[in-house]
């Protein structure tokens, strides 16, 4: 077991390094000199001076080495767009993404699990079909389009949602930052107006993401439940007179829980970096927007910082999933040892 874990960890670190290196190369190969991004015209001598100041005149290998050395000291480099250390930018952006991803995941799970259970228990019935239609529909919609439609209906026409302009209203009193999650922090500070403001702003983007992400959770629930319900011990329990509902909710669902938790975890991990389009539509200041803007502004250090964080999360996530499954099933352990 330990050998398995160490092996996976080692390979994960190799992947991480590979990702960082690949990002470094790709961003530096992107067309356009980052110095020319801001504020237009610069005379050649200014460009040279700025290149020197930013260390861009060194060969790529030297720049990469400097970057790695910086990383070892916890220095993620400087963002040219914001002027801040990238670590600071990430610190401000990550909670926004975590909040949105967390809210969407919870929402998706709350809806998907009951639907999945219903789907499995009442297989091929109206519920099942309804759930599957909802599922397929959710995955087929362009997520940015869905966000726009929701904004049009709930904000523009019905006026019940707040303006899609970020996490909170312009003059809301921001609570003291403990977790970085505005909803949690304002609750902890007892600041209810800010809490409802922040929560209100979470709802539309949360629903948009949840609708899309709900599908795999529903499918896993259904598949796991079906498999569990088909087991002989279920039939035995029924024959013994145990009420079906208890069987479903306790035994079958209980056995599916590991899968559900892992899916929820994977969904959450995906949402952190993958919510770019929704962040754009709702002006949500999260990681996805940060990556997008940095990419389009040739802000190398920022892009690398983003990739580093997201890749680490992904890899951690995958590692946990793989280890969980190996712990549960020794066959996977031995099968995987010979491969990746």
């Amino acid at each position, binding site marked *: 077991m330990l050998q398995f874990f160490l092996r996976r960890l080692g390979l994960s670190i190799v*992947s991480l390094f*590979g990702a960082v290196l690949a990002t470094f190369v790709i961003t530096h190969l992107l067309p356009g000199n980052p110095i020319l991004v801001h504020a237009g015209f610069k005379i050649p001598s200014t460009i040279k001076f700025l290149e020197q100041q930013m260390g861009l005149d060194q060969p790529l290998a030297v720049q990469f080495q400097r970057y790695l050395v910086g990383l070892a000291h916890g220095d993620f480099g400087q963002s040219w767009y914001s002027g801040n250390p990238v670590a600071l930018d990430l610190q401000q952006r990550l909670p926004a993404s975590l909040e949105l991803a967390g809210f969407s995941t919870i929402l998706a799970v709350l809806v998907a699990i009951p639907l999945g259970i219903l789907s499995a228990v009442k297989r091929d019935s109206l519920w099942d079909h309804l759930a599957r239609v909802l599922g397929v529909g959710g*995955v087929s919609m362009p997520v940015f*389009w869905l966000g*726009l439609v929701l*904004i049009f209906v709930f904000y523009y026409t019905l006026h019940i949602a707040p303006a899609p302009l970020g996490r909170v209203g312009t003059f809301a009193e921001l609570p003291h930052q403990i977790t970085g999650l505005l909803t949690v922090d304002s609750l902890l500070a007892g600041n209810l107006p800010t809490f409802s403001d922040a929560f209100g702003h979470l709802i539309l983007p949360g629903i948009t993401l949840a609708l899309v992400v709900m599908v795999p959770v529903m499918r896993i629930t259904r598949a796991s439940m079906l498999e569990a319900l088909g087991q002989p011990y279920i039939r035995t329990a029924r024959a013994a007179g145990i009420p079906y509902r208890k069987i479903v909710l306790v035994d079958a669902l209980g056995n599916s829980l590991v899968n559900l938790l892992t899916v929820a975890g994977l969904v959450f991990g995906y949402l952190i970096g993958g919510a770019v389009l929704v962040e754009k539509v709702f002006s949500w200041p999260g990681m*996805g927007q940060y990556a*997008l803007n940095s990419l389009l502004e040739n802000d190398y250090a920022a892009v690398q910082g983003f*990739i580093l964080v997201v*890749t680490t999360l992904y890899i951690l996530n995958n590692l946990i999933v793989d280890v969980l499954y190996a712990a549960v099933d020794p066959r996977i352990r031995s099968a995987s040892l010979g491969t990746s």
Partner: protein
Amino acid sequence: MATRVIAPERKEPSRRRRRSDYVLYAIRRSVSAQFGLVLLAAVLLVAVAGPAAWPVDPAATSSNTLAAPSLSLPFGSDQYGRDILSRVLNGIRIDIAIAVFVAALATVVGALFGVLAGYMGGWVEQAVMRVTDVMLAFPGFILALAIAAFLGNDIRNVILAIGIAYTPVMIRLVRGHALSLRNAQFILSSRAIGAPRWWMMLFHVLPNTVSPMLVQTTLFLAWAVLDTAGLSFIGVGIRPPTPELGSMTAEGAAYMVSGAWWYAVLPGIVIMLIVLSFNLVGDAVRDILDPQSR
């Protein structure tokens, strides 16, 4: 005297006919499959015959800008006075073409590398899987975005960008199956009689992974339409005046607030219908090839 039992002549159906019988049966059973097939047929029909049936130049500007849907402009007009229906009809072709090329690219390249990694093992497998792992560590959309930004805004580059982003998925899938086939009886027998490895990979291993590959390819088709739209929404991708459904939705977003809902909503619905048809047919394919997943 021995009695001869006269049984009615029963013609044994050939193996191929039996499978198609099963396919038809599976389709008849599932409402969603029927709906999906009909929808897909409709989408393809519109893609092929649409522009000819509605012969309006999608790039023709006019002064009748942002007109609401009417008889002469069923989908209204955009801020340049262009007929949105005409742009949508032409856009369907482009999006489907992109999706097909992306799926083809990712499937072919992914399958080749996947079978190579799965069957050959050793350092080949390690090399391929490490690269795959790195690529899969990136959020997929960001990867496609970076590649598209790097290559420049052109349909060909969008296909390359998205295709490259999908390839590692297929590599992983095929490798997994090739791995399990490596020690199958018929493979070992063929090796024993001296069949060369490339022969084994191409004609024995690959054909047996076609089922899961096919399922994944249908998924690629659906994802590709969404991701093309997404890239265009951000502004990386198709150059004007090429009509692309995602960029139309993006431009329309700005006009939705002032009441011109048709500009963003209608192309978005069309995207959804296309993706829906791919998804439903894909689900049907999966159900046929792997009934256990039902």
